[in-house]
């Protein structure tokens, strides 16, 4: 299903974090969201996934249209996400972490669904280890496994390669492409690593001060003078 956010405004008291942002992501499309710090990238993911209620604007996916959504309802519609700062459960094992999602958002056997999601993320071992005891790169992958277990229509990845080395980042790129191929979902990815964005995205949207300043194919956006001035530098 195609996802669409129309004219979204998000104000925090005196600060306008999003100022009429629109974003459309087709089924199976990977869209990169880039921009300077504080440009509203994570805020856009937060209003889309129900963490915040936007001041105004609307969202649609298929025939469904809404202006505000709860965390739970967003998840039940298949809008899934990861976090910039990893948020895993302290007291759950790797398998249990994914089972929580597959139990409530999946159909069929929760254990089997969870194991399938872990397989997709190359978790061949460590399933009985505590999630928070894993190495940092594996925790990043586990968050993605949790986000794809159960219903998935639209995946939001908030800096999935932050803090990872080159090899681990490459692995995330391969994983994201595999998820798109197998699941056919739309994906939005925020990342400061431009190589990741250029390698994996079909289209790039650039935010600056809460507004979309450019949108298009990666190579085209990279040459956009406005983007160079606001974000990329000379």
């Amino acid at each position, binding site marked *: 299903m195609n996802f669409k956010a129309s004219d979204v405004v998000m104000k925090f008291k005196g600060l306008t974090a999003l100022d009429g942002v629109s974003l459309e992501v087709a089924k199976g499309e990977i869209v990169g969201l880039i921009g300077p710090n504080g440009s509203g990238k994570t805020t856009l993911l937060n209003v889309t996934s129900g963490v915040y209620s936007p001041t105004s604007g609307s969202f649609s996916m298929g025939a469904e249209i809404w202006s505000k959504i709860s965390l739970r309802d967003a998840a039940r519609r298949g809008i899934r996400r990861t976090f910039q700062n990893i*948020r895993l459960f302290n007291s759950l094992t790797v398998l249990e972490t994914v089972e*929580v999602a597959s139990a*409530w958002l999946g159909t069929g056997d929760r254990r089997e669904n969870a194991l399938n999601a872990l397989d997709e993320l190359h978790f061949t071992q460590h399933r009985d280890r505590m999630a928070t005891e894993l190495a940092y790169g594996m925790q990043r992958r586990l968050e993605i496994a949790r986000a794809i277990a159960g219903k998935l229509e639209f995946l939001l990845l908030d800096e999935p390669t932050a803090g990872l080395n080159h090899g681990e980042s490459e692995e995330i790129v391969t994983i994201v492409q595999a998820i798109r191929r197998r699941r056919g979902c739309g994906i939005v990815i925020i990342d400061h690593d431009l190589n990741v964005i250029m390698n994996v995205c079909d289209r790039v949207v650039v935010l600056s001060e809460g507004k979309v300043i450019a949108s298009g194919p990666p190579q085209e956006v990279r040459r956009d003078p406005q983007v160079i001035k606001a974000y990329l530098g000379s």
Partner: protein
Amino acid sequence: MELMLQQFINAVSLGSIYALVALGVAIVFSILRLANFAHGELMTVAGYTLYATLLAGVHWFLAALAAIAASVIAALLLERLAYRRLRSANPLTLLITSFAVSVALQSLFLLFFGARPKGIELPAFVDAGFRIGQLRVQWLDVFIIVITGLIVLSLHLFLKKTVIGLALRSAADDFRTTRLMGIKANAVVVGAFMLSGALAGIAALFYFATVPNVVPSSGFEPMLKGFIACVIGGLGSLPAAVVGGFLLAFLEVGSDAILSNSLSPYLDAIVFGIAIILLRWRPGGLFGVRMTEDLRV
């Protein structure tokens, strides 16, 4: 030797009660970061229900079930009427609210039942016991220890093996992220209060079997002990609450055995003093858990 064994049984029995109270407090705290000081009043509700039903000639087993049910219903009412609207409030607001609820409930008990203690007519088997050499063991102590063991084991299996248990555990770690897994916030919170109410009801049965009088403030002391047990063990962790309950009981019974009669009135002060020293050493409790900063639901 017999005396030591006797004290050991006393400590395990008392620790069982503290552990059940501490578990009830810890379940709600771990999910909502709410130190529910009205937990003691849930025990008082169970106490008055036990008093009224036994007085009416109801069989003790049905009276016990009614007491647990009353405590669960009271817990659900507290959640719905007092705490639900305040879920997003800061922890201090929740704390003050729970104090206010505790005082309001005690006033209600005073209004309906008066200040005089109501004697609970316990069945005869409560005082029965048996001897092993010089050691006299009360069936009540055996019953309390075995039932508490079964409850702790069942609760462990429930939390570990069931989907609802999985949801409760993840919610205790990070409520907001749990909701991103499609889990309904109200269902988790109501589930936590139900469990907490049931544990308060069962703890009340054991408590009032050893102190067979109920007054409006009956729940305060066990609640305080249960809360301290949670703090000693480490707030936010259920196994730590159980360990804290037993540790507190062993401290209390051990101090009572060692201290001279003239120091007995200061037993609580001495035990709490030891607890403070323990917390100086480990401020997060013995098994303190790391909590997410996101306290709001």
